[in-house]
């Protein structure tokens, strides 16, 4: 039997945090994988940082992934980056993820992220980034 679709894990994370009305109120532009469309000012990014499969004799036993999940806000957007990061943590830390063919082994934060970046085009603009690296281990 082929292993379940690994991209389903990524989609489940996006679905979990992208359907939360509290987080969407803080980040109304939504949740995106890797990059947001141009013009967005308050959004959440999900990126796969690292992944390792646990292989058994009878096939893939588990997938152990590290995801970057962070809120990003432009300084001029007057967003509440602190509350957004806290809400992301509430949604992910210790929770179960529903992905077809998988069972959650663990979902927890391994390290916190808090950065301020200068915009590449307009140096007067700052981008606030806050969230964390989340370990998501899923059994097949």
């Amino acid at each position, binding site marked *: 039997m082929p292993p379940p679709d690994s991209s389903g894990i990524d989609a489940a994370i996006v679905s979990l945090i992208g359907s939360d009305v509290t987080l969407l109120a803080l980040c109304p532009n939504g949740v995106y994988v890797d990059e947001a469309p141009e013009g967005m000012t308050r959004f959440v990014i999900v990126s796969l940082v690292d992944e390792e499969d646990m292989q058994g004799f009878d096939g893939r*036993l*588990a997938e152990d992934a590290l995801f970057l999940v962070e809120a990003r806000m432009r300084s001029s957007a007057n967003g509440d980056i602190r509350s957004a990061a806290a809400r992301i943590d509430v949604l992910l830390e210790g929770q179960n993820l529903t992905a077809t063919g998988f069972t959650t082994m663990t979902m927890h934060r391994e390290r916190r992220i808090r950065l301020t970046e200068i915009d590449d085009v307009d140096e007067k603009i700052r981008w606030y980034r806050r969230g964390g690296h989340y370990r998501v281990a899923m059994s097949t």
Partner: protein
Amino acid sequence: MARIHGKRGQVYIDATGGSPSAPNLVADLMTWTLDMATERADVTCFGDTNKQRVSGLPDFSGTLAGAWNSASTPTLFGVVLAGEPVTMKLIPSSAEPTYYFQGLANLDGSINVNVNGAVTIGAKWDAGGNWDMNP
């Protein structure tokens, strides 16, 4: 015939130790090992210029390792705790299932729970009867 990868390894166990055996595939395993070290007896005598040994019988022992799965591991640990020798069949690759090692084995079990990783299991085994290599 070719060199092979370990990803198709298999372990079968017949908990009754029956012969002929009716072994069941053990799921969620990642490794198995088999050590065929042969006992040596020291026969060094006066006048010899180096130590000398003669071979005795080969030992058959080894290990199993895998991931905890509540659907399969309790069955394996049940076999371990029963304390009875089992018929074990170790296959290097299911692509060449006629090549295997088989015999009666005594099993010990272990479990490793780490806050930073998956729960893993292990087992040590040694021969509880004669072992064969096939073909």
